């Protein structure tokens, strides 16, 4: 684990010029601070009025201050105070925060209640204000400074650790460990604390930076080490008065703080990204500015003409036609680089027909859905073949060409109704916007149409003002279907539309889809891993395995006498085949 993080860290660093520069600068500075007595022979506190405010030069690299003291010597000796106070404070804060957070999170109950209340109260003070008050009342100096900063910093820490603990406590593997008889202390240590060690260290690193800032701010306000002993924040404050003639007095300590804190934050960030293993999101080039600003009159006219052509053909031509389409992963960084997702797939959906696409996970069936909507994203790329929508070749289409068709000509119902609806918009708004954007329905008729589609999917009109979280899974899936058919599209892509639903709800939603298909004359591409579902709705089926079509034909013929071995395997795998015959209920 640590090894992997380290490897990621060095890999990140390689080729990162700013990072290397920052790291070496900060290391150099910290190294010089640690070795201060050997780096400079100057005394940091001795005044010498014969050399007041000398500019930086060979004798005094960073010049001298208004008491004739060497700024470099003060900087290096001062750094020892600043850094050691921050490091000690971080260790105290981590120890206190982690212990309290872990205990409160794991035990819960009264302990947790008391701890959270105390944390709430302490966090009700602006951090710096409380630190200033504590340090001021204790009279300034190193120890009060450490205490002030620790008191202020531990609650936030404890709260984060408590949150992590609560989350991990309910993970399946912790529950399993409890059933497996692992003692509580072992669970806390092995499953929780060791899982948290990465985040804790990163937090500590990031916090070290903010604590150095806090230490220097308090010193700046005169609450730190008593003068003439040097400290970075205090040096900056002293230098302010003679800033116009000697800017180096301010620049030296200011830059020192900046470099150290910046390096800490930078690498804290890098480590955090490494530890969290944040998935690299696909590039959102379609949202970027140049594309937003591009508005091409010619293309707009072409789109209108295309739409007219398609309207004429919509009853005759296949709605969607794939002609030996191949898709593969093209991303040098991905472990799946070069993998073939779809391999020379050909299929066609005719108007008003339901095509069932059967495939297990990894068969490329969801890629098919994305293909039909023009939503295929890097790292997936075309490897050849043609995709025709209503007889139009889509090879040259860009995002905007597809956008004009999505929700109007072709729409999508996908697997998880829980996450398919925007949580912060009312249902009515989410259906209205499909009609508003595409202007397929006259503005005056949109309200009426909204009620009509809701009636179509058997939802009461009250859902218009409701939010997704107020509806059950089945109702949400009905909302998604209503959105999909609002503009009376010709083609509906249903990607595992009932997988997340209960048997009862599943049956209702399937009936609903079939009914709508008949009413609107929809072409339906029905994608599922469940043969039983597909058998119920599809006119024709296509069986997909690892990107290849292994069998295609009429539903009844295919299931009656499957040709491909894989289809037979799938059919044999359907549960209940043996016993149900004897149980006889069906």
């Amino acid at each position: 684990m640590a090894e992997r993080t380290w490897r990621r860290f060095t890999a990140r660093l390689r080729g990162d010029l700013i990072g290397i520069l920052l790291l070496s600068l900060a290391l150099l500075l910290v190294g010089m601070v640690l070795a201060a007595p050997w780096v400079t022979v100057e005394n940091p506190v001795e005044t010498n009025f014969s050399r007041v405010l000398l500019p930086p030069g060979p004798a005094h690299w960073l010049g001298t201050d208004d008491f004739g003291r060497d700024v470099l010597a003060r900087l290096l000796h001062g750094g020892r105070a600043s850094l050691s106070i921050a490091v000690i404070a971080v260790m105290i804060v981590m120890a206190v925060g982690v212990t309290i957070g872990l205990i409160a999170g794991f035990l819960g109950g009264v302990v947790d209640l008391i701890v959270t209340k105390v944390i709430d109260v302490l966090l009700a003070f602006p951090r710096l204000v409380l630190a200033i008050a504590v340090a001021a009342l204790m009279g300034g100096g190193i120890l009060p400074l450490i205490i002030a900063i620790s008191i202020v910093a531990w609650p936030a820490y404890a709260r984060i650790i408590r949150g992590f603990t609560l989350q991990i406590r309910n993970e399946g593997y912790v529950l399993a460990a409890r059933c497996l008889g692992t003692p509580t202390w072992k669970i806390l240590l092995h499953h929780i604390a060791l899982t948290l060690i990465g985040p804790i260290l990163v937090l500590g690193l990031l916090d070290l930076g903010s604590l150095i800032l806090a230490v220097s701010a308090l010193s700046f306000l005169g609450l730190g080490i008593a003068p003439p002993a040097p400290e970075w924040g205090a040096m900056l404050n002293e230098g302010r008065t003679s800033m116009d003639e000697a800017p180096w007095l301010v620049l030296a300590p200011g830059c020192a703080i900046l470099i150290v804190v910046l390096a800490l934050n930078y690498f804290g960030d890098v480590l955090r990204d490494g530890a969290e293993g944040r998935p690299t999101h696909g590039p959102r080039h379609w949202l970027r500015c140049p594309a937003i600003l591009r508005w091409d009159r010619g293309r707009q006219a072409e789109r209108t003409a295309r739409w007219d052509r398609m309207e004429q053909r919509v009853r005759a031509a296949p709605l969607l036609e794939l002609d030996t389409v191949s898709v593969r992963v093209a991303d040098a960084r991905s472990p799946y680089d070069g993998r073939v997702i779809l391999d020379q797939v050909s299929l066609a959906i005719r108007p008003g027909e339901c095509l069932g696409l059967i495939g297990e996970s990894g068969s490329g069936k969801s890629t098919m859905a994305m293909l039909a909507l023009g939503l295929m994203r890097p790292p997936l790329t075309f490897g050849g073949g043609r995709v025709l929508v209503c007889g139009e070749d889509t090879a040259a289409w860009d995002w905007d060409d597809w956008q004009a068709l999505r929700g109007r000509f072709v729409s999508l119902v996908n697997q998880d109704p829980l996450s398919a609806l925007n949580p912060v918009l009312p249902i009515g708004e989410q259906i209205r916007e499909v009609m508003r954007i595409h202007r397929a329905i006259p503005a005056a008729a949109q309200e009426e149409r909204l009620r009509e589609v809701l009636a179509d999917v058997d939802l009461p009109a009250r859902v218009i003002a409701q939010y997704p979280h107020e509806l059950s899974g089945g109702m949400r899936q009905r909302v998604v279907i209503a959105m999909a058919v609002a503009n009376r599209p010709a083609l509906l892509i249903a990607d595992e539309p009932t997988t997340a639903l209960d048997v009862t709800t599943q049956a209702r939603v399937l009936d609903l889809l079939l009914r709508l298909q008949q009413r609107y004359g929809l072409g339906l591409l029905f994608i599922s891993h469940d043969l039983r579902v597909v058998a119920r709705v599809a006119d024709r089926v296509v069986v997909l395995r690892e990107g290849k079509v292994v069998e295609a034909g009429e539903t009844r013929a295919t299931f009656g006498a499957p040709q491909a071995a894989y289809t037979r395997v799938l059919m044999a795998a359907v549960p209940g085949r043996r016993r149900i015959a004897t149980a006889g209920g069906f």
Partner: protein
Amino acid sequence: MAYYALRRALAAIAVLFGTTVVVFLLLRLIPGDPATAVLLTMVTPGADTAQITRGDIEALRAQLGLADPFPVQYLRWLGEILSGNLGTSLRSRQPIAEELADRLPATLELAGAALVVMLLIAIPSGILGALYSGRPADHVTRMLSLVGDSMPGFFLGVLLIYLFAIQLGWLPAIGRSDPAGIVMPALTLGLGVAATTSRLLRASLLDTLAQPYILMAEAKGMPRGVLLFRHALRPALIPVLTSSSLVAGGLLGGAAVIETVFAWPGIGRYMIEAIAGRDYPVIQGFTLAMASLFVAINFGVDLLYRLLDPRIRVEEAPRG
């Protein structure tokens, strides 16, 4: 909504009582006998400490109510606080509540201006960073926000004074008499908190853009503007709002430092002057006032949170 507001208000009041306990206990941090300490600072340096009589100390102890047991002291003090009496400044002998009230508008003005600066910087740069993630624009905004995060506010303030007041002479270095005087303090304070917010917004927007409902909205044929501003930005702002207490804390806490740098006549500077004069009642009153202000802001944020996120139920506290 009303029920939710009531619940949050009650929670805020409970926290406020907690803060009074902490503030009350703070005074016990003063090393030695507080009354003596206070008296000692009131005599001019070099004066004969023998001049302080036992009677002086006793009188002061009585004035500060230090002779009674703690709970009694606390309750009496709480009673005074609730009736709006924060005590009297040891130096100016004026009621602290009035002195704070005189200076509060200047601080609020500064914090408000800094908030505007922050929003103007953080929101565009956060969006830019998310949309161009992994591209040069992202690297630049990310580096800038890292620098902003790592830059001590007082250093930035001093640099700005040096550049724009001393070298260029464009802006007044200190004070509130000139309307242009607010530019530099607001910029300094705003930049510091903008960095954090910008990074949060970037991360949150990236997460939101990867959500299935954004894909669904795209599949519905929503154009770019609708996708970004209507579907992605609002949910993305929710976690940013959660951290707004961090921002408010940064603004209020930073004010003490920044007001000192720019000699801005707000309550932060009043506090720092009080520290120099060991005016303990003022420090106490200031801390309590800041905490109350902070709790009030957080309460407002809670209400805003509810407006932004319909999923929040009454039982759930937004933070945590």
